[in-house]
């Protein structure tokens, strides 16, 4: 364990922005949700009505589980229990892999390991930081919850329940980091395990097999029942499980070489069949595209099932009035709901598209583009071989999201897929912006593109709470996508053509600038 403290300081230095941002946002969220819940459901009758509706909606049960108590605390814990665990779990996985397997893959661990650093120090340091960060974000959420009038004891338990999911997935990632030499595989296996454990919890709550919840960290986070009986001893189950997983990760790490994996790397083909730039690009992009396709298809089916229940469950005059206000006369609650969901999900699709759009830049930065461009591969052709996946790629997740939802909803796959695909030009606009940045400021392109997407999300969020005016919100391309499910289809063409034209102009400008500039590898 020698050197663990030094490595902890290295991790804190490298993530000095990321860690505080994550901790502060996660710590502020519970109080925000509590305050919003208090404002929305002012009396016990409103809370009871909402609880009854949620308990009868299989989609809500699958996503969040049952409401344990229709109190302010009970509803807050129910709203955030699941998503808090999801965010905490995902960030914990990414951080642990980043500081263990990814370091080894990059060859930096080797450099440190040759110094006075114990064999277990890197894993111990990464786990210490991530476990402490989860604990901190859980405890920091307590003062805000108490200010909203919630009992302190239960609030501490709620904070620790959220932290427990982060701990569990940090331990899972510690284990998957030992398996193979590739950090991508470690990340993928850990995230897939997360998806499976979430499905297990969903089945427990929506499928009527309650004991299954004990097998999943997502289950533990709500089995503690904060504000509804406070079962502290469930945390004991968490601690024992995390300790067991961590111990096995350390045990496994002694059975392998530095930079090696427990599973021997499979040998690949001795001869290649890649035809050239486009063949190579497909190899590099296919994982992202196929993975997002499968994920969004499942998500679509789930949402379609959820929407099917909505119309009958919330068939109250208030909800019909709300739907009509947003969607026009006669709009159905389910369609209003799905229109909102699409808006958010299209931005996640944009994140995938951005990864593809920035792939050319990451190839350039790593110096791999140099090898290909020294061969008779034109710069434009090389850039287009990646760009084509950023442009055509997002069509797959959008189409299967709509098709899956449409099929599960009313069997009308085409209409809903048409509505999701309407977001494609907005996605392209962000892709176009990234391409422009790639052409003009290669070294800043990645950071600037992600900041643009982050700003768009922020503007949308602020506009939702009426904190910025419509003029600012108009800067977001997603605002200009007409809600195809609500209006008539004829009004949709003009804005979509406009967005496509903007995206096209950005791409052309980016490629023209790329054609003129020096290559900028980061070495």
């Amino acid at each position, binding site marked *: 364990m020698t050197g663990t403290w030094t490595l902890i300081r290295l991790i804190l230095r490298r993530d000095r922005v990321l860690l505080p941002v994550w901790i502060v946002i996660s710590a502020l969220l519970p109080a925000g949700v509590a305050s919003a819940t208090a404002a929305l459901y002012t009396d016990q009758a409103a809370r009871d009505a909402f609880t009854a509706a949620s308990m009868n909606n299989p989609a809500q049960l699958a996503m969040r589980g049952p409401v344990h108590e229709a109190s302010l605390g009970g509803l807050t814990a129910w709203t955030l229990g699941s998503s808090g665990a999801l965010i905490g779990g995902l960030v914990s996985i990414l951080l642990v892999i980043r500081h263990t397997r990814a370091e080894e893959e990059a060859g930096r661990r080797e450099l440190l390991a040759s110094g006075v650093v114990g064999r277990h120090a890197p894993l111990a340091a990464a786990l210490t930081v991530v476990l402490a960060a989860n604990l901190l974000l859980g405890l920091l959420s307590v003062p805000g919850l108490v200010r909203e009038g919630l009992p302190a004891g239960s609030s501490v338990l709620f904070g620790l329940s959220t932290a427990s999911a982060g701990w569990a997935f940090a331990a899972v990632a510690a284990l998957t980091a030992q398996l193979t*030499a590739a950090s991508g595989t470690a990340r993928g296996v850990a995230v897939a395990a997360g998806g499976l454990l979430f499905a297990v919890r969903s089945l427990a709550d929506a499928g009527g097999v309650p004991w299954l919840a004990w097998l999943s960290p997502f289950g533990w986070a709500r089995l503690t029942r904060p504000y509804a009986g406070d079962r502290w001893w469930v945390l004991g189950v968490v601690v024992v499980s995390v300790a067991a997983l961590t111990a096995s990760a350390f045990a496994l790490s002694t059975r392998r070489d530095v930079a090696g994996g427990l599973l021997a790397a499979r040998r690949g083909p001795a001869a*290649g069949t890649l*035809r050239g730039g486009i063949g190579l690009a497909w190899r590099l992009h296919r994982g992202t595209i196929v993975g997002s396709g499968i994920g969004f298809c499942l998500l679509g089916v789930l949402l379609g099932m959820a929407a099917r229940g909505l119309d009958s469950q919330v068939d109250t005059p208030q909800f019909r009035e709300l739907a009509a206000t947003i969607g026009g006369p006669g709009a159905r609650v389910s369609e209003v709901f799905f229109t909102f969901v699409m808006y958010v999900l299209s931005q996640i699709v944009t994140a995938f598209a951005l990864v593809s759009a920035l792939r050319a830049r990451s190839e350039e930065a790593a110096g791999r583009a140099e090898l290909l461009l*020294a061969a*008779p*591969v034109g710069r434009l052709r090389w850039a287009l071989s990646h760009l084509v996946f950023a442009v055509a790629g997002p069509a797959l997740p959008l189409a299967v999201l709509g098709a899956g939802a449409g099929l599960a909803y009313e069997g009308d796959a085409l209409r809903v897929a048409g509505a999701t695909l309407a977001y494609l030009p907005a996605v392209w606009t962000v892709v176009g912006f990234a391409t422009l940045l790639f052409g003009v400021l290669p070294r800043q392109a990645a950071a600037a593109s992600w900041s643009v997407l982050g700003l768009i999300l922020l503007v949308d969020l602020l506009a939702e709470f009426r904190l910025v005016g419509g003029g600012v919100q108009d800067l977001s391309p997603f605002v200009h996508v007409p809600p195809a499910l609500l209006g008539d289809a004829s009004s949709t063409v003009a804005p979509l053509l406009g967005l496509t034209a903007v995206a096209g102009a950005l791409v052309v400008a980016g490629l023209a600038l790329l054609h003129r500039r020096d*290559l900028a590898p980061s070495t």
Partner: protein
Amino acid sequence: MSAAVRVEALVKSFGQARALDGLDLTVRTGEVHGFLGPNGSGKTTTTRVLLGQMRADSGRAELLGGDPWRDATELHRRLAYVPGDVTLWPSLTGGEVIDLLGRVRGGLDPRRRAELLERFELDPRKRCRAYSKGNRQKVALVAAFASDVELLILDEPTSGLDPLMEAVFNECVLREKRDGRTVLLSSHILSEVETLCDRVSIIRAGRTVESGSLADLRHFTRTSVTAQLAGPVPGLASLPGVHDLTVDGALLRCQVDGDALTAVLGELSRVGVRTLTTRPPTLEELFLRHYEGAAA
């Protein structure tokens, strides 16, 4: 004589830093040309200009009779390049990368590919993430040597190879030369350049300080002389062109300028010589002289 590479007064700045400061370089067709310089002297920048990946601020660069920037794609059909720091796609195997690079260059000789894999002892079925620096370099070298091109641009290609593999590399370069190909070999390993190169250019701080055949360059430099003498030679120290003179009893060592050699030998033979060793300057000494002079 035709030139595969002709660079004149090339200037390239990155912000304040001047990477190339009027660099000249001529590589004749069919020769192996050593491109020597310490780290950061501008070798890689020159290579990138020649490959059309960067545009010079001023000066002229000509590659295989074309403009390296404007005609990049066409010219790249006729050359192969091995970067100094080879990074490969982690999920592809070495064999796949060799074939990919071969295909985009217009095909490679399968017999030569197999032969090179064997000689370099490279396992083509391993994923690139598992390769060491030397093995990544071998992947790029096999792809380059197996393709049918006129010009090879090799940027410090042996920095990760062990001595045995360096020998294999040397044989490969000599074979390319026999086949009439041109090789531009950037390096700071002098023995390698000494074995392989017909002519060398030495650069420092973005400028060419010396260029010519090894024989030409040696002419301007000092010869080491070691002799066992019958008696003292008091006049030697005052002779122009004699440097670093040490006398240890009968043993004398010194460095002598090329044009002072006749006078020194005359002086020595006057007192009587028992043994005499003269050694032409190594490239190392040549190199050091340029850089020490510059640092002072």
